[in-house]
């Protein structure tokens, strides 16, 4: 494939700080995102540690109620808007999308850099809100508390979210145009890697949904600053209207978080099973189906907020409908393993972790969508456990699976396979220990966002806090072996996993413009079976 390896790659072509800050290279922009997202993740994890430490005892003894409320709010804001939404599309998507398409870059490289700057400005506002006193509304900013009740930095934090939204819209737009216009010769839609289908579906949601939340958060800021009555009933507004607008974006946002990791899982499963993804077109279209149905289920967040029982019924029905494409994906991944040649390298272990946690997260959605049960478990720890299984168990595990898969491509170096497997297992165990007890706590009736709680909930909370310690250690491990790999890791070569896909046909780290010669595509994305010797 490669005649000679060029000594110049995207990392060493120019090492000045300015060359990074003004780069138009999608691969460098991906690294820039990785830096900011990792900072946000560490911040969010520190807030989470504060929450779990406080909840280790029933009394509110470690921090004050106000501090506790700020901790869970800032944990949510940092993790949702600055980690979960950008983590896979902006880091792995930016890095591999043009490579997968056989393109030199995304369609609009300058716009791509602008997206990052907008993201950083939004993050700066949010950090400013945090260091100048914090914000205590919960990441959901529900009025009238957010507009009238809270004395914290709501406007500043809201502005941060508002600005960050534009980064998301621009990235979505850029990806859509890139996928339409930048595919290599012969790369038809049904030869695209499934990660590209997932990114396309995600971009649709980003472009169509994000403006709504930006407007909604802006309305909160305007109501708070100038007393315009959108949501506060004393000013003639309606607090439930906010919830409709907010969840019209924020439920589809769950799919922004989970669709790209799902796509990543398809890539890794195909590579380490060394065969085609089972039911390629069903997996591809299930991404689109999830993106579209995802816009029709928002009011299941309002089942106890005084909406009409009949609209609750309709939204419950639609929520069950969206469960089907997710089930289809899971069954197809399982079937992909059948008669494969399963190579249990570290990325695959992270995929198994994803499958286990996403399975629990998805299936517990059947409880929260059930009207009769949701009345009981709404706003309890059951919901907290459910969405952490989806967002951390799904999105973050999927990110780690993808990061371990593409690390050799990104850095040109290998990492310790054993350490990476140990980390995956530690994270899996720690995660379940942290969040499984919360399902039980939720069904027992422990409400979320509680600084103090009745003593009978103590044992399960202690177990959860202990699990969080294990989980934290699990996340520290990758930071250590990845750092070690950066300096001491073995050379990876262009294709250490012997994977299909155009991204593996260029050297690692790739050239500044990706390919020495324009690749031409002649077959589907996962034709492993054609390439090498058959299984005996």
């Amino acid at each position, binding site marked *: 494939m490669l005649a000679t390896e060029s000594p110049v790659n995207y990392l060493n072509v120019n090492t000045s700080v300015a060359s990074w800050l003004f780069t138009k290279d999608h691969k460098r922009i991906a690294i820039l995102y990785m830096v900011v997202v990792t900072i946000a993740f560490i911040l969010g994890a520190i807030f989470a540690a504060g929450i779990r430490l406080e909840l280790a005892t029933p009394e509110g003894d470690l921090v004050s*109620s*106000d501090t506790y*409320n700020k901790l869970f709010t800032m944990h949510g804001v940092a993790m949702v808007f600055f980690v979960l939404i950008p983590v896979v599309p902006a880091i792995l998507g930016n890095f591999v999308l043009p490579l997968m398409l056989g393109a030199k870059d995304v369609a609009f490289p300058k716009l791509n850099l602008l997206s990052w700057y907008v993201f950083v400005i939004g993050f700066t506002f949010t950090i400013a809100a945090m260091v100048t006193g914090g914000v205590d509304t919960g990441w959901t900013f529900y009025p009238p*508390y957010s507009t*009238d009740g809270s004395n914290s930095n709501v406007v500043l934090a809201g502005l941060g979210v508002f600005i960050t939204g534009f980064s998301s819209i621009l990235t979505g737009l850029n990806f859509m145009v890139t996928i339409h216009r930048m595919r290599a010769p012969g790369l038809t839609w049904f030869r695209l890697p499934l990660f590209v289908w997932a990114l396309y579906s995600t971009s649709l949601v980003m472009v169509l949904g994000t403006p709504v939340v930006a407007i909604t958060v802006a309305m909160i800021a305007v109501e708070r600053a100038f007393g315009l009555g959108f949501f506060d*009933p004393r000013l003639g507004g*309606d*607090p439930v209207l906010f919830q409709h607008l907010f969840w019209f974006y924020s439920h589809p946002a769950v799919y922004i978080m989970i669709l790209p990791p799902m796509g990543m899982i398809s890539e890794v499963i195909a590579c380490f099973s*060394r*065969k085609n993804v089972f*039911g*390629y077109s069903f997996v591809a279209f299930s991404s689109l189906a999830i993106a579209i149905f995802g816009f029709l289920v928002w009011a299941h967040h309002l089942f*106890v*907020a*005084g909406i009409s*029982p009949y609209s*609750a*019924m309709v939204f*419950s029905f639609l929520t*069950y409908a969206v469960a*089907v494409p997710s*089930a*289809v994906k899971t*069954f197809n991944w*399982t*079937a992909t*393993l059948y*008669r*494969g*040649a*399963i*190579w249990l*390298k570290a990325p695959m272990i992270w995929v198994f972790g994803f499958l286990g946690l996403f399975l*629990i997260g998805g*299936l517990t959605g*059947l*409880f929260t969508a*059930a*009207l*009769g*049960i949701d*009345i*009981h478990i709404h*706003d309890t720890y059951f919901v907290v456990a459910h969405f952490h299984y989806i967002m951390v168990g799904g999105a973050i595990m999927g990110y780690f699976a993808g990061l371990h898969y593409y690390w050799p491509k990104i850095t040109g170096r290998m990492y310790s396979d054993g350490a990476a497997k140990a980390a995956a297992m530690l994270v899996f165990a720690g995660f379940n220990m942290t969040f499984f007890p919360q399902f*039980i706590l939720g*069904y*027992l*009736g422990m*409400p979320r*966002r509680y600084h*103090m709680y009745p003593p*009978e909930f103590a*044992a399960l909370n202690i177990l959860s806090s202990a699990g969080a310690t294990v989980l934290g250690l699990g996340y520290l491990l990758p930071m250590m072996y990845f750092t070690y790999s950066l300096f001491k890791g073995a050379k990876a070569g262009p294709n250490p996993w*012997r994977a299909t896909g155009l991204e593996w046909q260029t050297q690692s780290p790739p050239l500044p413009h990706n390919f020495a010669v324009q690749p031409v595509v002649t077959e589907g994305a996962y034709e*492993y079976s054609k*390439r*090498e*010797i*058959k*299984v005996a």
Partner: protein
Amino acid sequence: MLAGIPLFPTQASTIASEVDNLYFFIVAVTAFFALLVVILVTFFAIKYRDDTGLKVGDPITGSIPLEIGWSLVPFIVAMGIFVWATTVYFHSIRPPDQTLEVYSTGKRWMWRFQHVDGHREINQLHIPLGRPIKVTFTSEDVLHDLYIPAFRVKADAIPGRYSSIWFTPTKTGEFHLFCAEYCGTRHSAMIGTVIVMEPDEYQAWLSGGGLTGSLSARGEQLFQQLACSTCHLSDGTGRGPSLAGVFGAQVTLQTGQRVLADAGYVRESILTPQMKVVNGFQPIMPTFQGLVTEEQLLSLIEYVKSLSANPAAGQQATTAAPAAPAAAPQGDRR
């Protein structure tokens, strides 16, 4: 030590067992699918394992019948759960005709309850065993949520409108009452106790404590004080419509629209009288926004309700049987 750790909530209302049966069914269904996938993945990963990374898998690209099968089966299972869950939901939100009424207002950070006989309590709710009870409530400031886990009921308290929950207690004892919608600093301290008593003990509790008259009597007093009675004459000759028999009936508005005169309508008519003017009357009523508290509004509503022919079931509670006042548990009654 494990014995002391609760893993499952008490069932203390008629709806609780319905909710729990459905819960156990979904636990069984989800456990089945989870195990199925976990067993298959584990089995495949062991059976087809290849540590060399040099072999390749069979070129299996998919199967239309399988895709249809595993789309349809989850859909059918999901629809089964949907129908069952929706049935339970309608049971849990639709009270029977005859309920014992309790009114409540949430404010940061306490729950105040008003019984129809005039008893008031804070963060405590005394109720009798075995009778359907309906709590109608609102919030005086931000969003709250009245949640009684042992009864499996919950609804948001939303400023500017009324919500309600209903339940029939099936167990005596004390149960948690939580605020389940985040409301600021002391959200986790906005909790209380529901005390379910045997009917005779409840009667004893009712007869204890100094009362200032029933809730509707307080409403009637206000009705005079606020001069509502000067326009809303009971014979229908006043400048405002007579309120006799209005509650629970359909009212025709100037616009020709017909609306149900429920608690929300009465509240709206007092606070924003120009919004829904009754057909045949002039929009001359002034607003009482800021002049009446949420609790006073509830007493006015109870008074208007008492003017309807149908005697409210709640009134039965005031026919207190004589019993030893000493048996009454302490409550914050004023």
